[in-house]
């Protein structure tokens, strides 16, 4: 065997060492995966969603390994997922079983089951916390005045408590650090009077008879986007899966910048975040057994889109769901699903949803521009010269 010239390999290994140095060098303490899952839970959630794998610890490792580059971390998780065997397929779980830690409806002041504000940044002032480090730490160990942890910013921001709205916090017992994964995964029992599995607003609308019936063909066996490539014309399950794993920013942009978005806007009548059980059919008894749970964000959004020759009397429904707490993603997804369901056969929109939202695809495509391409470029230059006419036109004929 000829000795392999390993110049490039040496350079690549040197680059890897520099990455490693940035990860574990420096004066600060090494980063624990537990710190990431506890303190940066939303990043972990996003990576699990885009990685298509529920594995908080592995996602934390991926975030650490990628130096906080979340699309890169999602790639690590996906590549790992590829190597895992498929042990089985779980039976479907109705999301009515979702045990909510947060549930709001912007369609009703007081929806059946109530509003559960839960943990959200929505009503917290976006003020950069400029407290000295030690003072900030001292405050964060003492529960805030409303039992909801530290008040961010130099001035304490009281949360709004509109009277008469049955609404509660996620951690009524004054847990010092809201958002620890284990509290998410095991919501407290309903002793606090909060309905943890409220009925969907959709069922209210159905009873009122104001919801458009589901359009399109039935789609009983879900399309598997990880095994079969998709193209426009794929069933709804394919676009829902694609969006659930999509890059959050791309999904948001596609919804926000879409020409298909109608005048007015949809109303997310149902936004919930909580835990769903994962079940397997027992191989012997044939009965479903709960083997774990995942947290999801779920959105049902409503809008009355006009149909030609029809009065807008019924509501269109859009559905969004993704791993973890990522409302931006679930709302964008529901908005796009509503458009896709309404505009059946809109090949352009389907093309964009199915083929441009995957974070691995788009980041890979842009990363690839960094690879050497002098072979191609030589060819391009030669054609440019030939077209200008300062090179012999005949070239070399083959």
């Amino acid at each position, binding site marked *: *065997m*000829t000795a*392999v*010239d*390993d*110049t*490039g*390999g040496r*350079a*690549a290994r040197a680059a890897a060492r520099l990455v490693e140095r940035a990860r574990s060098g420096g004066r600060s303490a090494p980063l624990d995966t537990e710190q990431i899952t506890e303190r940066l839970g939303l990043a972990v959630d996003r990576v699990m969603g885009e990685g298509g794998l529920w594995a908080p610890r592995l996602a934390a490792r991926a975030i650490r390994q990628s130096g906080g580059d979340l699309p890169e971390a999602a*790639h690590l998780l*996906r*590549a790992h*997922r*590829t*190597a*895992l*065997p498929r042990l089985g397929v779980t039976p479907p779980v109705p999301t009515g079983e979702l045990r909510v830690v947060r549930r709001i409806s912007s369609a009703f002041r007081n929806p059946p089951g109530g509003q559960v504000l839960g943990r959200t940044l929505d009503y917290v002032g976006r003020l950069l916390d400029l407290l000295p480090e030690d003072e900030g730490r001292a405050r964060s160990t003492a529960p805030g005045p409303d039992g909801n942890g530290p008040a961010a910013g130099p001035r304490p921001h009281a949360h709004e408590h509109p009277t008469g709205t049955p609404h509660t916090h996620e951690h009524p017992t004054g847990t010092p650090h809201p958002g620890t994964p284990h509290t998410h995964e095991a919501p407290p029992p309903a002793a606090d009077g909060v309905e943890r599995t409220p009925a969907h607003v959709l069922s209210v609308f159905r009873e009122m008879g104001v919801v458009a019936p589901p359009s399109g063909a039935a789609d009983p066996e879900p399309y598997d986007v*990880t*095994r*079969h*490539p998709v*193209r*426009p*014309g794929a069933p709804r399950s394919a676009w829902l899966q694609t969006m659930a794993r999509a890059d959050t920013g791309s999904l948001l942009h596609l919804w926000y910048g879409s020409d298909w978005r109608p005048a007015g806007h949809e109303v997310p009548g149902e936004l919930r975040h909580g835990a769903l059980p994962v079940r397997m059919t027992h191989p012997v008894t044939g009965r479903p057994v709960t083997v774990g749970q995942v947290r999801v964000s779920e959105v049902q959004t409503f809008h009355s889109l006009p149909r030609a020759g029809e009065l807008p009397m019924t509501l269109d429904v859009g559905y969004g769901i993704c791993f973890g707490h990522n409302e931006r993603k679930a709302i964008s997804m529901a908005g796009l699903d509503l458009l896709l369901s309404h505009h059946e056969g809109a*090949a352009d929109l389907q*093309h964009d949803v199915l083929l441009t939202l995957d974070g*691995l*695809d788009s*980041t*890979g*495509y*842009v*990363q*690839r521009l960094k*690879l*050497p*391409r*002098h*072979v*191609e470029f*030589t*060819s*391009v230059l*030669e*054609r440019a010269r*030939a*077209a200008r*006419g300062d*090179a*012999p*036109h*005949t*070239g*070399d*004929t*083959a």
Partner: protein
Amino acid sequence: MNDQLTARLAGPPPQPGIFDELSKREIRRAMLSGIAIPGYQVPFGSREMPVARGWGSGGLQATLSLVGEDSRLKVIDQGEDAGVNASNLRRLVVSHVGCEEETDTRHADIIQSRHRIPEQPLRDGQVLVLQVPGAEPLAGIVRDMDEQRRMHAEADYAKMWVRLYEDVVHNGLITAAAGYPVLVEGRYIMTPSPIPRWDVPKLDRSEAITVLSAGREKRIFAVPPHTSVVPLTFEDRPFEVEHTPGAACRLCGSADTYIVQEPAADGRFTTWVCSDTDFCRRRRTGDAPAPAQPVQGETA
């Protein structure tokens, strides 16, 4: 006893790593379909690889599905074995499968390449795996994927011909540079991946199998041995490969290989070197076929 029985039923434990055996089998089936229908793009369930999509994730899946422990693997990028990307991919496959690294084209069983076909004519039994960033030759002509499929299915390539004709009318020549569209076995129009036009004739009636794999677009296509591959052109417009009169490799003096520009001592791009580093090395040691035409010597 029971343990032995279950172990036997379960088969060998799955190799931890990049890719499971069932997935490899699926990729091999896609390749076989591609070989059975030369030039036809076979959709496949492209997996996520430990490299960015666009860095050879499709080629890597094809290679991993083909190599065994006793395979000799050559990986090149821009014709070089030593490039960062080529080294990286080779290291990845070798560490996963434990196959042999090879740089000599003649001794390689599988050659994964980005943008080049080696100068050394390939032989029977070899497989060339080309990385494909864009699989659809009609992509720049019609956007609708259903329409693209219809055009392929009905061999309705009129729009492609019109595009080439317009090119001639507007620019006086066909400006397609690398990735020149080809007709495979008189049936399917195919992109040969962004290889220079210099390499396109090497695909025609090659002794080896060429597998083209696009990981991001999830398509595999192939050219089996002894298959005609003809670049699209008009009767009065002979197909032109890259050629710079008077230029030759400054290292081996070849003027009959694909050469790329290099900065000379004065900092200007006036010298040329072979893009195929293995062939260039062999030329210098007299271990390569003689030039097909007289070597014109070094340029200034």
